């Protein structure tokens, strides 16, 4: 097999694996953004919290993967609901800056708490189904990577079903389009906001759980994951979750290719430079229409 081809393939696999995580973080951003117009700066912290909780439950308490997975997601969802109830809900008519600082404060608290409970080191967790690499046309692929991609597909499918075929999902969409009209139609918009925080936290937790075996989670990873996830959300057009999935995977692939062919030291900068370029040149994202975005605040 041509070694250049194998390299590209290897970078692609790497990129899709990272990109899947960015895609899920971006979906989390979008859910809260659609329900409230807020960009949640603590989104990355949900990912960290999910991952670290999973580490404790599987490695500390020796629970089965499935059980630990469900418990971790529920735990982070509760954290998301608490965040909404205690910090977002009580604030009446806040300025954008105040909201930004409130979500930053929550992210600092979660980060601080994570550091107290789990310490400063990074945490190892066993892979879901062994860590023996599989051969894929000459490139290697971890079983965990297949899990990551598979679970992303499941999340996307669940997302589509939820927002298109369930009453609650349709109510959430109605709130996102026009909150006042939705309220007039008898939808409890406050509850929808709370639900959006819960779901957003849940998706973040899933992302954290599935990536932890590969990257070894530590308390300080939230900011960077959040920023890159936001990059994916903007690239896909803020509020457009299917766009975010494509953009997330694209961002991951570009990052992996950049790291492979340009410089691995600057890997983290690549996704961020793409973020800045999109924000500066086309803040409506690659799938958004510039005309429609003019109505949104940015």
């Amino acid at each position: 097999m041509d070694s250049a081809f194998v390299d590209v393939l290897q970078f692609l696999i790497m990129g899709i694996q990272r990109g899947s995580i960015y895609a899920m973080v971006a979906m989390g951003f979008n859910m809260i953004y659609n329900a409230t117009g807020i960009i949640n700066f603590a989104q990355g912290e949900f990912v960290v919290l999910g991952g670290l909780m999973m580490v404790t439950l599987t490695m500390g308490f020796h629970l089965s993967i499935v059980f630990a997975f469900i418990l971790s997601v529920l735990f982070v969802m509760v954290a998301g609901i608490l965040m909404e109830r205690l910090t977002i809900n009580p604030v009446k008519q806040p300025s954008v800056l105040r909201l930004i600082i409130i979500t930053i404060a929550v992210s600092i608290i979660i980060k601080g708490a994570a550091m107290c409970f789990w310490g400063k080191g990074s945490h190892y967790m066993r892979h879901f189904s062994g860590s023996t690499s599989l051969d894929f046309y000459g490139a290697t692929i971890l079983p965990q990577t297949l899990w990551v991609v598979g679970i992303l597909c499941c999340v996307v499918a669940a997302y589509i079903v939820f927002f298109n075929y369930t009453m609650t999902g349709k109510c959430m969409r109605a709130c996102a389009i026009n909150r006042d009209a939705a309220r007039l139609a008898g939808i409890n918009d406050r509850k929808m906001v709370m639900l959006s925080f819960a779901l957003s936290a849940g998706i973040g937790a899933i992302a954290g759980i599935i990536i932890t075996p590969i990257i070894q989670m530590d308390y300080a990873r939230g900011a960077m994951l959040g920023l890159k996830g936001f990059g994916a959300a903007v690239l896909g057009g803020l509020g457009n979750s299917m766009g975010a999935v494509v953009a997330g995977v694209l961002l991951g692939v570009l990052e992996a290719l950049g790291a492979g062919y340009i410089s691995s030291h600057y890997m983290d900068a690549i996704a961020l430079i793409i973020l800045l370029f999109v924000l500066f040149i086309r803040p409506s994202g690659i799938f958004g229409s510039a005309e429609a975005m003019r109505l949104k605040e940015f």
Partner: protein
Amino acid sequence: MKGKHSAGFFALIGAIMVMPLLVTNDYYLGVLTFTAFNCLTCVGLCLLMGYAGQISIGHGAFVAIGAYTTGILTTKLAWSPWLAMLCGVVLVLVIAFCVGIPALRLKGHYLAMATLGFASIVHVVAVAAVDLTGGPAGIVGIPRLNLFGYVLNSDKQYFYFAWSAVAAGVYIALNLIYSRVGRGLQALHGSEDAAASLGINITAYKVQIFMLSAVFASVSGSLYACYVNYIDPGPFDVMHSVLLITMVAVGGLHSIWGALTGAVVLSLLPEILSFLSDYLQVVGIQYQPDYDTLVYGGILLIIMLFLPEGIFSGISSVLSRVRLLFGKTAKGTDHAG
């Protein structure tokens, strides 16, 4: 400068003069000197956020650029720290101009994320560009500043010097607020459309104030580098930028004095906490410095929820309420008479 502000300004000068007489311990004097660096950055950031209404979670990057320019030029090319500081300012002006023009077209969350992304990139470069910045190991052997050939060796000298820079920054900021430029900035904060309808070039004003506040940060970074004599990327991560805006927000966005209060309180917080930890031990709580982040986030959240205008305006509103109470009784007697 207006009446109450000149009173505040002279109070600040007085406090700076007296402080080293009260604090004789070199360690605490050092802590206060570090506080000065944060104060300087926060005064500039307050002009940008509180007066012009533009959010930046990227000012840590300008501090880093100032510090690294000083570090690199003084150690590798053996330039004078003053010249290096000036180069840092020029470099920061250019970078702030290039970043500011596209970034300041954005508003709110987008601007916040763009500036945060910028700060992250600068940090990544500081770690990765090993040839230039020394990478994670950083740069050692940065010389101390000299003033007219007189090297600022003692902590006390540097304390005076750093705080003089803060005083100069406050002087500049207060002058600016009560000027044609300051009104233009506050106008575009109030309503960009209305400001433009008065002939204010809002794009130019936003970029200019962004550049000016970046210069404050850059000078602060240069002073920091010359004080600690070595720099590494550690203190210049994204968290540093976040800390800076939280200082401004905790103190109070809408006033220079608020920003100073916030910078002082949060810079001293780790010291206050470690001081309190002795008392907490009595109550049975084993306080560790690791809890600092948690406490810090908690304070920030509580202030944003219950005192959104910041500590400073909280204090002044309590004071004015007290004054009102006395004022009312005075009026009451007038009526009776």
